[in-house]
């Protein structure tokens, strides 16, 4: 019985042997053949098989994936290797996040995942399911720019503009966490984003101005202002 499962014939696979059963075989293999240098109690093989069999495996072919982007649910079929950035750009036509280094370095692909800025080039779409994904597209309301975007315009905080969406999203996440930053804090806080045109001075100014604007508007509304410290 076990031998049969361990060696699924190609016929069985063609007839659609479930991924789950296939895994049983693989799980058994890793339990039995491992190099044996470890100490400690032996995990019974049957238990290892059962353990692996409980887990669903997706791919490598496209699998159903549901993403929540800017509050909207999107249902896609994607290979597990598709990054969140590729899903946004190539499947959802949301091209605000940019693909530049594609190696978790430059920040042009920054999105906010459950409130935290991340490099979407280095997160898989499949592992972003069930999380709240916020992109630069969510910031402007119609023709009306988000105050942070307006501050970027006002302060000449871009030249070629390719890094700008990533910077704006990173700055939004930064200000949500540190509403009253000093210039030095803003500088360090945006250390995960690069601008090859070198418009950093304008960017820091824009971020500080947006922070001030936010404080002013809070005072205006009479929310007791200055409660950010």
């Amino acid at each position, binding site marked *: 019985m076990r031998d049969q499962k361990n060696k699924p014939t190609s016929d069985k696979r063609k007839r659609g042997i479930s991924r789950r059963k296939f895994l049983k075989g693989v799980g058994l293999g890793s*339990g039995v053949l491992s190099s044996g240098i*470890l100490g*400690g109690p032996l*995990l019974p093989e049957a238990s290892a098989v059962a353990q692996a069999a409980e887990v669903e495996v997706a791919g490598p072919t496209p699998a159903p994936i549901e993403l929540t982007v800017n509050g909207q649910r999107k249902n896609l079929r994607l290979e597990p290797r598709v990054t969140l950035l590729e899903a946004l750009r190539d499947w959802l036509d949301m091209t605000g996040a940019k693909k530049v280094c594609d190696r978790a370095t430059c920040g042009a692909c920054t999105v906010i995942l459950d409130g935290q800025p991340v*490099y979407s080039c*280095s997160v898989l779409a499949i*592992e972003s399911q069930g999380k709240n994904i916020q992109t630069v597209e969510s910031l402007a309301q119609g023709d009306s720019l988000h105050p942070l975007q307006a501050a970027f315009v006002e302060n000449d905080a871009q030249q070629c503009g390719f890094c700008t969406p990533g910077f704006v999203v990173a700055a939004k996440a930064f200000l949500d966490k540190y509403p009253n930053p000093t210039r030095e804090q803003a500088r360090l806080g945006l250390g995960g984003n690069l601008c090859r045109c070198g418009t950093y001075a304008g960017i820091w100014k824009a971020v500080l101005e947006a922070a001030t604007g936010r404080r002013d508007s809070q005072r205006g509304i009479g929310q007791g202002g200055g409660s950010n410290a």
Partner: protein
Amino acid sequence: MKAFEYAAPSTKEQAVALLGDRWEEAAILAGGTDLLSCMKDNLMAPSRVVDIKGLRDLGGIEYNPQSGLRLGALVTFEQLREHPQVLSRYPGIVQAVEGVTSAQIRNRGSVGGDLNQRPRCWYYRNGFGLLAKDEQGRSLVVDGENRYHAILGNEGPAYFVNPSSLAPVLIALGARVRLFGPKGGRELPLEKFFTIPKTDSEHENVLQPNEILTEVLIPAGSWQTATYEVRQKEALDWPLAAASVALKLGGAQVQEARVVLGHVAPIPWRVPEAEKILTRKTITEEIAMEAGKAAVGQARPLSQNGYKVQLARVAVKRALLRAVQGGA
């Protein structure tokens, strides 16, 4: 990136059963900041990716004055940076964390991932292998572009430097790591986790393809810690040289010292020569300089990286002064 299967187990037993006996079979995904880059560059092409972020007992930071500090492998850099007791009792850890100047990396990058990230050696990253050899088996590093390579532990054939931010300070604190594999768990000092590969088939640590690093344990003890990194630029980058120190003080006098260098050798490089100099001394600028000098006494720079000797020496001096000034 080669297509792969994806699984997100919820227990470590399930996770281990999903891993393979060979490295090509499966890769462990935590924050993904290094793994996905390696897969895009074809340095790794696993058939299956096992996402361990759902393993609940791999998370959490717990501090207890009696038992010390426990860090789950999935603890992120940002969680470390914001933890009250890590902030107040282990400034050397926070300083190492803050060396990673990208919020995006700190939000995803994990303790286990930092300890297991692959070297930054540009020969390795460009597909010439961990030991970076040409067709005749000669090192490309020795006569090549070696300005960022090892100045210690570089007798060959490995010349890369260990890229971990946390390993030096954790080793200085006497940390142990727990690994979990198909036959159960094992625990060993973090210092013994790292190895210098001698052959192409070896890795830079003792983790087996079907094992997971699950937690880091720092024994209780009152240590003054500090980390000092020297980097080429302020933005996101790996240091050129770094030093972490842990001092047990009796009054102003050092009872016990641990000095560990980062980014200068294929493994985090502990320097007993420097530790010996500090024992029973009061840390002054002079003593700190002497310890720095001793720390690089065995250094044998390659053709382009002699400057790293000076950087490492200064990193030790400044880490020591920072530790006794108690400044974070």
